[in-house]
């Protein structure tokens, strides 16, 4: 099959407007990683199971390997690089470090974006709600114990 011609898209990414010509089949995750060099969003599977590529599109947590870049045309996208301004840490980022909620760190950006989406919509989640919110994010290192604790502590403002 011959590659299909591209399309110009305009996406706001972490507060900045980005205009690019992309192949219509280009995945949003590859647009972010390869075209915009935002490599904090990771790819861990090719089937939409692992959640390492989770970003927030117009307020919704989205697996960016399950969305075409052209589908994000006109949208506002937040990636891990935009979670906190400048070099500051978001409460969730600080909590992940304090509670040792990451080891290799590969799932972490996607996990943080799913957690951010949860707290944006449910500031006081129960443990069950936290586990449900990150059900689409696979971590192979931690067994999730400390991730759940970190999200809970961030929600309660109990992070040093």
């Amino acid at each position, binding site marked *: 099959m011959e*590659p299909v011609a591209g399309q110009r898209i305009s996406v706001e990414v972490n507060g900045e407007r980005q205009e690019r010509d992309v192949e219509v089949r280009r995945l949003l995750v590859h647009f972010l990683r390869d075209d915009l060099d935002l*490599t*904090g969003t990771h790819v861990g599977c090719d089937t939409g199971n692992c959640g390492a590529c989770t970003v927030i599109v117009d307020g919704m947590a989205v697996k960016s390997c399950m969305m075409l870049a052209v589908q994000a045309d006109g949208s506002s996208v937040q990636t891990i690089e935009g*979670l906190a301004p400048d070099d500051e840490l978001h409460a969730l980022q600080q909590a992940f470090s304090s509670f040792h909620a*990451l*080891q290799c760190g590969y799932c972490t950006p996607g996990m943080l974006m799913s957690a951010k989406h949860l707290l944006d919509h449910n500031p006081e989640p129960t443990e069950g709600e936290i*586990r449900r919110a990150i059900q689409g994010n*696979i971590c192979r290192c931690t067994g999730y114990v400390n991730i759940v604790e970190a999200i809970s502590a961030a929600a309660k403002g109990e992070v040093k």
Partner: protein
Amino acid sequence: MSETTAAPDKPITVEEQEVAPGFIGVNVPRKEDRRLVQGEGVFVDDVKRHGMAYVHFVRSPYAHAAITRIDVSRALELDGVYGTLIGEEVAAETDPFFQIAPPPGGDLKDYALAVGRVRHVGEPVVAVAAATRELARDAADLVEVDYEPLETVLDPEKAADPGTALLHDEVPRNTIWHGNFDYGDYDAALAEADKVVRIKRLHFHRFSSTPLETSGAVVEYNRGTGQWTIHSNNQFPGFAIIMMGPALKVGMDKLRFVSQDIGGGFGNKICTHVQLVAMCLLARKLNRAVNWTEWRTDQHTANSHGNERVFLDVEVPVKADGTLLGFKTRMIDDCGAYTRYEPLGCIIWAQVTPGCYRWRHVRVDFTQVCTNKSPCGPNRGYSRMQHLWFTERIIDIVARELELDPVEIRKRNYIRADEMPYETPNGCVYDSGDYARCLDEALKLVGYESIEEKRRDAESRGKLLGFGIGSTLDSGTNNFGQSTLVNPELQFSGNNEVATVKLDIFGEIVVTLGTTPQGQSHETTAAQVVADILHVSPGDVTVRAGHDSYWNSHAGFSGTYASQFAVTGLGAVKGATDKLAGEIKQIGAAVLGADSTDEVELEGGFVRRKDNPEAALPFMACGAIVNANNAVLPLELREITLNCRYVYVPPHQLPDKERKYGNLTLTYANQIHACVVEVDPETGVYEIVDYGAVDDCGTRINPQIVEGQVQGAAAQSIGAATHETFLYDEDGNLLTPNFYDYHVPHALDMPPLRTASIESPSPFTPLGAKGMGEGGGAGLSAVASALQDALRGSGKPIVSDSSNPYHRVWELLRNPEQSRELVEVENR
């Protein structure tokens, strides 16, 4: 700078400081975290080069077939395709990979791409390089390969049968390795036994830890120097270089291995040397950087699986009081289509021959066969996990048949704390530990004292409650001399790891490691050790992220694998830092007018006189003097560099090849897990309702990091016990090639997980620490044990498989007699 460096007769004065607290044993926050939570880590696919090509492999759709034709012309016609690589080119330009096995198993030919024949589904046949990932995939679809299917070999128990098709013409009966192990006096033990328990067959299944980051590389070739730079997530560059240098016919200096952050490894990223050679050839052929990022499906289909193993004709002599004397069995290990780290697994299990038990008489007939499945390789708990699961199954099956309490039979047979260091029947020396105490702790974690009450409560809800134990060891700091027990001609032994520590011109303390961490927090724990020795804080210590074989912190066995960093890596860090501390004291003593280094000490970033702490020289001044103002130094001190390199070499000895005897690792961390399940007797669906994991890895450098490893290892073994399995159909197609079909634990799958620890410091290691990352696979044993217990009132089925998804439990409930046929008890 001039003030501090040029004033030896006017020492800097500082305020008296409190004694620096020790950082070993403290939960120091991780140095790695900041970049990782910000998405600023650098993983292999984050590395980009100008004009870089993306590589896609054309892979075999057949489990076993002859390749009759390859035509890449249509792919090459596509705009943006840079080139291809096929097996014929690989065979012309490289030698087959060095084989660890002796002939005839070691006669097989393994290349970077299939040459003339494919031996498993997913085997790379052609590599295609193009301008984008998508284009490379398009082009791969245009490559034409013709195959003539051959008979497939999938059942390891039949692979060696006469008349079975051969995978490798050079390897008779598909047998990679065979050997007998005979320790103690098994025949005498059998004669002494009051009862003999016989188990026809136990089966340990095939799975993998499936790191979330798949394998990959960005490889560059420098035509001027003939050198490759290999940015990769290979976790054992020392081994990769040993494999790749001879294949590519170059010395190791031509293979520069670089990595920063690695997204999980678990052993599965040791054997990527095969694909890396293909990348090297392509980078040279195309004269451009090439990126290979493995797809998830490819990782499952054709990367490194954990070995499947069967235990046949198991015989266990037992005394009337429940003392087990040993065991006899015939093991068949399935290593898949090629031997990349194998047949080392044929000896590595022997690191833990008697498991946690005082069994003195062991007879094992071990065969490793190849089959038309993905090649196997190290997987967290490599080869010991299979064996330890086997020992735990023996204990629980014997306990069930002889109606002994599973706790009591363990305590009766565990090696005791007062017997440490304990020499096992095959000469391994368990360094320290208190297994019974760990078991007591594990029982507390799951509320064992009220287990019968919980059982009744579950019954009142129509559920069957089961309690189980998993007792494992995580043997670490390999003695590579064990390789000579599978091939006496090999010239490998001992182990080593390197670190450098320097004090530089602005007073910065910089550490380089020879390791390739994948989440094990080496930057943090190394800084803790350095801080303690130099009496500074971990924040004052820079540990370079990642690994670069050009840093002079690379040794033959460099890498991160086999539970050893706390011993080899930190041993190297300690050695280098001790040297640096001595050099700083030499400079300090000279500058401060002390007669010897005994008269000075390090404190708070200064070297100072003990008799006059106000006479102190800051580290910055030491660094500046040596590096930029060394004419002030007496001549005899000018050899000091403040840049110290240390190679830690453990005190290993050559094992006895004839007897297959000797200490195969330096440390033996212990894990005791306890598990409580509730089974629905109608459906076989079960839930783990309580889970406790106790770990004893000697001195813990950073308890929070240790606990993280314990939780992760427990999760992986629970996943493997319940759902994760690489299943093949009758044609050799993998049925679980992605995270849909291969179900790893998600957040809602995990049981409540409680942890505890005790510390039995190792008498044999620099810090009393033991390697501990692998966790021994105790969860596999604990879940099997708990399920067997839960089903005891349902016809007493025997759990004989390590893979226990719901449907298998349902089968045990429906047909317990079938499993019971596996076991016989002979009363003497």
